[in-house]
């Protein structure tokens, strides 16, 4: 296992419910180890196992796909 921390900029979160929805969605993704979301900054720190998942794959998480209105981009590349 190769642990890596990925920073996401997350758009569309307005309340704690949004934070829960996004966290929940990300945590379900294979290779995601831990998720910390900041509503204030509109960002998230995601621990991943980079043997299993590439950082860009996080952007394709169901929670960021239509009809969901949340979107994300990578912050540190």
């Amino acid at each position, binding site marked *: 296992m190769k642990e890596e921390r990925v920073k996401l*900029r997350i758009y*569309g979160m307005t309340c704690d419910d949004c934070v829960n929805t996004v966290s929940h969605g990300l945590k379900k993704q294979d290779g995601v180890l831990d998720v910390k979301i900041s509503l204030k900054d509109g960002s998230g720190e995601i621990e991943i196992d980079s043997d299993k998942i590439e950082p860009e794959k996080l952007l394709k998480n169901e929670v960021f796909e239509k009809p969901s209105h949340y979107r994300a981009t*990578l*912050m540190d590349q």
Partner: protein
Amino acid sequence: MNSEVQKFDLVILGRGAAAFSAAIKASELSNGEMTIAMIGVGPLGGTCVNFGCVPSKYLLEASHSVFRPEHPRMAGIHTTMVKYEFSEVMEGLRSYVGHARDTKYAKVIENYSNVSLFTGLGKFVDKKTVVVSDSNGKDVAVVSGSNMLIATGSHPTVPNIEGLKETGFLTSDTIWGINDLPESVAIIGGGAIGLELGQALLHFGSKVTVIEALDSLLPQTEPEIGSALKMYLEEEGMKFYMRARVSKINKNGGMKSVEFITHKGNEKIDVQEIIIATGRQPNTEYLDLKTAGVDTDPRGLIITSRTMKTSASGIYAAGDCVSKKMFLETLAAREGVTAVSNMFGEDMKIDYESATWAVFTNPQVAGVGMTENEFSRKNGSCSCRIFSLENLTKASITGETEGIIKITVDPKDNTVVGMQILAPNATDIITEGAYAVGKGYKIDDIIATSHIFPSISEGVKLAAQSFIRDLSKMACCVE
């Protein structure tokens, strides 16, 4: 200078078509939350609206309004000399450009509170940070972005010809400021820009001479189209020197002398004005792309994948600064959207194969897909047909029979792989070719599609029918 680094989600270097389409798409995808810095110099909107597509098409249309009544095509219509004031035409052009810039760019971007405009040139100091300097070279801001988009466009090249700078010349950047029609013009470069400007001035009444280094016009087109266009332009009075190399330019009284070498030896013409239209080069030198780790080709154009990603992660490029074959507003805008969509994790790829291109002379030239030669070189064989507008009812009614439609298909299954059109409204009807090439339609799909009779677009159907029957044995309404 505010030396504090201003942080953004996206930094866009450029304020032209690629930059605007990217900024708007990014704002839409993030519901206006993505903070965007847009950096650039010169008027908002960049080349297309200020110095390119918009003024050139305005000038061409105005010139045709003068030329057409002076050259009627139909029986009983007499030659009418049009009164016009060139300086007022140019005033109208500049006013229209100002209006288009305001309504399509300046006012539009005001609606995006997430976009901050910076005036100055940007240079990378690291992969994520750009320093912005004003026209005196003074640093005015430092901005950083999680994602970067380079959309810095291009500028006209000026060849190193003895005496050119001292003598003075116009380019597609500066011609829009003139108020007097030059009585005679030498256009150095017979590409799309040179021919469009040349025909516009010719239609207003200038004597126009084109000096071209290659032996054919518009090398990206089918040879039949390039040579037919040359012939029509010559019939209108444009003079061409092909395979000619300009060696020296100097002032000669009130005139400008252009010396050049052709197969005949040294030749010389005296003209009132010189227009340089020898191509464009990317605005990438200033950016310090090495520092950012962004690779370029030998011409300085940025190398990207079809996703518009550069060699440096998190840095994308779009528009005329990208290494590719065609440099068009439509592609710049599409590439901007592609880059931004991929920043959001999509898998969008730019489709150059079914991108349409055009030259707005009259007749216009437009094309999509591969030429006959390109397809056969790649696949060993191909099948094509050329349909002349002389056999088209609409064209023969109006007398505008100068033109051809060429369709190239894959002989295996008659799938359309390329279409080029030389016709009065080629730029409008080429969209049918774009659908055909983009969607993989076959000749039968075009034939089975309803086309208005009589129209120029019917020519596309007839060109398709010529693959299956001899058109000279066909009544006008055979399906």
